[in-house]
């Protein structure tokens, strides 16, 4: 039981970290997704390259870069700030790619119908295309949230005292057979935490499919 409560002490930070990075991603990905769909080749290229670059470098490298590399005079990022910023930027890139895919998956007929009704292009986008795209991608967003939750564990490497960090600490303090327990507990907690999101994602998936393609 001790091990369980020790690991649980990290839960608030795990949730804070995942939640803030996700919030940054959900909002920040909107302009980037528009850039990925832009007809302006320069804007497109800049967005495309940035998204691929951010996604192509492992999370742990981003976190170390921000935590140990960023320094102006005596200013340094705190571990938590570095982790939120790093995971936030990574989620912007992943979610932008998801949004872009959704925008492109909206059935052409729906967009054409809106245009035929005489809607202005702004209204077609915000009233028809974007909401439909959001429905198409909401299961993917939920899946991404689950992988972000797991990636938040990497913040333990820059000494953010989240769940994995707590399990490490407990294991070090109890160097007996019990030392295996905190890892089993923390693994089980992650699985438990992703269950509701997985359930929601599955329900959303079947509902949204019906609504968009009906």
């Amino acid at each position: 039981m001790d091990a369980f409560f020790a690991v649980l002490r990290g839960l608030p930070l795990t949730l804070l970290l995942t939640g803030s990075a996700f919030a940054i991603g959900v909002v920040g990905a909107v302009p980037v997704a528009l850039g990925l769909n832009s007809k302006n080749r320069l804007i497109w290229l800049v967005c495309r390259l940035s998204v691929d670059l951010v996604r192509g470098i492992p999370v742990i490298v981003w976190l170390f870069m921000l935590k140990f590399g960023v320094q102006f005079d005596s200013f340094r990022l705190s571990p938590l700030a570095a982790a939120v910023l790093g995971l936030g930027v990574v989620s912007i890139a992943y979610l932008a790619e998801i949004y872009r895919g959704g925008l492109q998956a909206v059935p052409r007929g729906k967009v054409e119908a809106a245009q035929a009704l005489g809607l202005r292009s702004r209204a077609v986008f915000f009233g028809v295309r974007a909401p439909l795209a959001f429905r198409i991608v909401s299961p993917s967003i939920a899946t991404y949230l689950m992988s972000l939750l797991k990636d938040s564990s990497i913040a333990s490497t820059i000494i953010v005292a989240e769940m994995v960090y707590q399990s490490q600490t407990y294991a070090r303090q109890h160097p007996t057979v019990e030392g295996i327990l905190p890892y089993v507990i923390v693994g089980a907690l992650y699985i438990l935490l992703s269950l509701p999101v997985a359930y929601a994602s599955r329900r959303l998936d079947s509902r949204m499919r019906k609504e968009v393609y009906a």
Partner: protein
Amino acid sequence: MSWLSVWGDYLPTMLDGLQVSLLLALISISLGYPLGLLLGLAVSSENLAVRAISLAVVEIGRGAPALVVLYLFYYGLPKAGITMEAMTAASLGLVWNTAAYSSEVMRAGFQSVHRGQIEAANALGLADRHTFLRIVMPQGLRSATPGLMGLSIQVFQATSLAYTIAVPELMKAANNLGSRDFNYLQVFVLAGLVYAAVTLPATWITVYFEKRMNRAYA
């Protein structure tokens, strides 16, 4: 010292680390994908025990962070009397992770095979085993290929986590250089670029492949 000359100094050490990263990725993929194929089949087995066990293996492999699995193998198991080298622990952890994710990609591939094809094979009197091996599997694996290529890139990036259990891969090499010279920014920017030098071309090849496959089916 300018950035470029620092990088010139560091690059050989980093490339040594990259070799270990690539080796680890190769092990994870070449063992993980066949295992993933088996798991994907076992999950839809009619035998309840087989199904339950394989489902647990997949769900733990996908649900627990790779970092936790690595810690469990490297720091946890010795306390239960099982000790292994860092590289072995990292390989086992990443193989598990890779197998779990790839099993889902392959299952999705198999499910994408048109039902009519299976019905046609049944109508022709093909045994279930042959229907699977000759009809479903080749087509399923083909449509799973872009997904598996994308997963390979993720697996390569996940090898960076092996740094935490002292595997001398790219991230470890970078960190050693950083704590020697305190040039952390230069070091980790270079490490990022070395990772990107592998992942970016691989991503573009994957995208090209995806597009070509979509066209082939359209």
